[in-house]
């Protein structure tokens, strides 16, 4: 496995994790009065993290599809758990997204009440998310994956709408239940590996060489996927998400929709495809169907929403559907598209929630019925909202387009009918978003709506990076695609090998796959 990993002399990953963690601690330990200081500590920490990520992106070897900056230490070796972390083209941008969104949340969507703990939880959430994206040990991943629950839980409970406690509990129970199933899956994978090699390990690279019988593989894949699907969320595991997005504070919603949702999708790409290449292709039609239903369902329900945040929540569901579609279409283009859409959707949703948060700040509501004609008093806000909205619809030249396009193209190659149905999703997106825009921004502003102030310079500065990235991703996606593609290729290679050449599978120790007569006969048909 050595050729898959490249380590680095500079401890990027450790620093990447330490900075937010220490920032969080510092924020907690500050005296009560210094809430503003705490905020700046948080912003500082997250900006430093962002800097580190940018440095890493530059240092990243574009042609290498394997893991880079790998750090490996012995940890709870009795249980077979070790500290292995690294970054490849897929996780790089997820980490980047996390590092980008956090400072923006702290700058633009900070809370006045109990700022100290807000900042601390935010940074802890960032820490946990980055940790999950860089973990190459299954248990380590699980630890971070679970750890995201705690800060997000407290963020939801602590700040937001009146029904937030119920929403938070719903969120926690759903996701926790999902991950328990996943844990059993993880343990069984390790157990299988233990049986085959007599070595107890949870390292992803080692476990990739494990073989499963056909049924076990599918069951395991399902166990993993349930955990991820709830987190993502994928239809029909999405029911927690509108409530939670709707009740949580704007900043929290940004983190949840932009980053945590990606954690689920990332998990599918990273673990489902790598560990169970054969089962993935078996299960793919089901997943594609769910994804397509999600796209259409999300879009239709979004049409019926009277609440901007819930609307974005359902639109997110549709977008996540696209990502899953791209993932399980199992073609290079679609997978690349999925990763790219993860990035761009993260940015777009963050921008959405940020802007909605600002609207809510000004108007005290985000109900579509109560908003009208904001265009007049707040033209810049309207303009920015338009850009984000168009990107979300998938207008060429903006971020959303590239991802959706690649996904649809890639899916069409392998599974054309699903691709055709999914295309309707784009149309629906255009309908509900434009409709929402029309209802809230156009028309004649009256009453409270007329006195809405436009964005301040500070706010414009805060949202600027997001808008710039939306444009940049749409216009010049190459640097991103360069880094994504090799890793995607490597991931897909296994599936191709497994599915095209059964003989190779049986002889292959390297890439694993499956064993047994049953599977081979399955191959035959």
């Amino acid at each position, binding site marked *: 496995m050595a050729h898959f990993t490249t380590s680095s002399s500079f401890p990027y990953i450790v620093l990447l994790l330490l900075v937010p963690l220490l920032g969080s601690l510092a924020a907690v330990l500050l005296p009560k009065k210094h809430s503003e200081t705490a905020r700046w500590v948080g912003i500082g920490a997250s900006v430093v993290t962002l800097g580190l990520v940018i440095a890493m992106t530059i240092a990243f070897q574009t042609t290498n599809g394997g893991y880079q900056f790998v750090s490996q230490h012995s*940890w709870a070796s009795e249980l077979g758990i070790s500290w292995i972390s690294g970054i490849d083209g897929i996780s790089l941008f997820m980490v980047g997204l996390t590092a980008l969104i956090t400072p923006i949340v702290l700058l633009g969507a900070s809370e006045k009440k109990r700022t100290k703990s807000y900042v601390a939880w935010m940074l802890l959430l960032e820490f946990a998310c980055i940790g999950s994206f860089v973990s190459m040990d299954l248990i380590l991943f699980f630890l971070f994956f679970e*750890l995201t629950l705690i800060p997000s839980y407290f963020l939801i409970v602590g700040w937001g709408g009146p029904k937030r406690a119920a929403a938070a509990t719903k969120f926690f129970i759903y996701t926790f*239940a999902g991950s*328990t199933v996943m844990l059993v899956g993880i343990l069984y994978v390790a157990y299988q590996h233990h049986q085959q090699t007599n070595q107890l390990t949870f390292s992803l690279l080692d476990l990739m060489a494990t073989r499963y019988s056909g049924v076990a593989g599918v069951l395991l894949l399902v166990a993993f996927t349930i955990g991820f699907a709830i987190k993502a969320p994928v239809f029909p595991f999405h029911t927690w998400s509108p409530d939670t997005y709707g009740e949580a504070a704007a900043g929290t919603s940004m983190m949840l929709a932009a980053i945590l949702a990606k954690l689920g999708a990332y998990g599918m790409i990273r673990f489902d495809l790598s560990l169970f290449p054969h089962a993935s292709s078996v299960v793919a039609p089901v997943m594609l169907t769910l994804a397509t239903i999600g796209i259409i369902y999300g879009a239709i329900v979004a049409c019926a929403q009277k609440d901007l945040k819930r609307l974005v929540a359902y639109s997110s569901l549709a977008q996540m559907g696209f990502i899953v579609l791209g993932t399980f279409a199992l073609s290079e283009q679609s997978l690349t598209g999925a990763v790219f859409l993860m990035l761009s959707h993260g940015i777009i949703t963050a921008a959405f929630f940020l802007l909605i948060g600002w609207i809510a700040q000004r108007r005290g509501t985000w109900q579509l019925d109560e908003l009208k004609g904001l265009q007049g008093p707040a033209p810049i806000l309207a303009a920015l909202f338009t850009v984000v909205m168009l990107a979300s619809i998938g207008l060429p030249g903006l971020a959303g387009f590239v991802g959706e396009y690649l996904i649809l193209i890639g899916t069409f190659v392998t599974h054309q009918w699903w691709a055709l149905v999914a295309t309707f999703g784009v149309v629906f997106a255009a309908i509900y978003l434009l409709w929402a825009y029309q209802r809230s921004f156009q028309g004649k502003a009256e009453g409270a709506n007329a006195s809405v102030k436009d964005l301040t310079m500070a706010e414009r500065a805060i949202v600027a990076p997001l808008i710039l990235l939306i444009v940049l991703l749409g216009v010049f996606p190459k640097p991103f695609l360069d880094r994504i593609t090799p890793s995607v290729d490597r991931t897909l290679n296994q599936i191709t090998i497994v599915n095209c050449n059964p003989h190779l599978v049986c002889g292959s120790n390297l890439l694993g796959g499956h064993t047994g007569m049953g599977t081979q006969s399955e191959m035959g048909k």
Partner: protein
Amino acid sequence: MNLLASTIAMPNIDYLALSPEIILLVGATLVLLATSLVRGGMKRNMATGITLLLSVAALIASLLQWHRVSTQGATITIAKAISMDGFSAFIGVTIACSMILATLIGHVFLERERITTPEYHILSLVAASGAIVMAQANDLIVIFLGIEILSIALYVLVAFNPLRGESGEAALKYYVLGGFSSAVFVYGIALVYGATGSTNLGQISDFFAQNQLINTGLLYAGIALLLVGFGFKVAAVPFHVWTPDVYQGAPSPITGYMAAIAKVGGFAALIRVFIAAMGSQASTWQPIIYALAIATLLLGAIVALVQRDVKRMLAYSSIAHAGFILVGIEVGTLAGTSAALYYLFVYSIMTIGAFGIVTVLGGDGDGDHDLTRYRGLARRQPWLGGALVILLLAQAGIPFTTGFLAKLGVVSAAIQGGSWPLALVAMLSAGIGVAFYLRVAVIAVLPGQPEMDADTDTPASAVSAATSRSQTGLLLEESTTTQSEEAIVNVPLLGAIGIGLATLTTVVFGILPGPLLDFANSAAKIFQP
């Protein structure tokens, strides 16, 4: 005929092997003696101090044992009655640590209830020695004596609070069921003795090694009865009926202490008897433990969901914990045993810590343990509330706490051992568990007074509404309480140290689990041939 003529060859005694018991038991006696020799009795602080010293000494003795075992191997001493091995050293450390924490927390209780006599400490020292005896015992009758020393001390401790009627009642319930289980256990000993010809675990194990039992009926009956006896001691369903009442009625620090060491002792003896001595008969006892584990996991978690009293909730949660430990034992492999051991340690610390907070919040008379009391705790007292939240989440098995690794270890062992459904049930129970731990945690985190000016209910209707909600499922009532901001609870220094240590252990070993896992693993190795 003349006894004087024939000298008796006294067995060899390895005093290091006995040192923890001797320190605790003799120490307790000396404290008792000193009390009666000092005019006006021993001062409370003095007694606490001495008890702490003794506990630390026992901890050191256990560590010395560990050192000896790891350099020179295990020993069996006093006519094979006691074994000193990694396992006993690990349990010794666990019990000594529990003892230290419980003493710190107990002092808070004694101070608040103005109890001046040192019997509390004496009894807890003796109880600890009983538990250690159970862990070291290499003979069924010694295990029985250990159980009794532990139980008798605990019966009295449960009845310790003279001002609360519930305390005596709890003691009585505990006593009746404890005595009952002891009797069943003894009958089990008798049948096993009949089936194998000895009560010595080493002899029993040799007997199985040298003989092939054709008629196993007597042994089966004996094993079943022993398991029933142990089941009562460790509160496995369906032998758990005493637990909630006793936990609720006992003084809070005692509840924590009891929940920890009675289980540690019980499980230690259970592991020793079944895995060490009757490992070859695993096919006999495994199914029983399997069933017990499933019932325990599910019932503990489900019933805990609907509790309003924090102590009862924690009682049911401790039942669920027992289920997890049983999972580790059922597997019977090295991984399973070591996971169970690790779980025991972790569980003890977390439980004592949690009950420490319950003690502090219990108020004068130690009677106020309703959930509403915890509302907004983390807002009012971030440190105390934080510790509570951490300890609860750790019990729920949240990552980067010891609780997670403990659950992981057990479930992982179950899967490796092929006990699939058990692992799934365990995960399910953990999932349900999250709900009820979270419920308390949420209440602690939510504001003490509703932020929104919701309609102000009368207290009665608020409570009934809360109860009805609790019965329908999770309650996260936002606007039930009408009481004014609760007073800040004073946390005495020793109590703070105790709770802090427990919390710290839970977190630190959760992040750096290596040493403890190593310890548990090598402690469990003794049982592998």
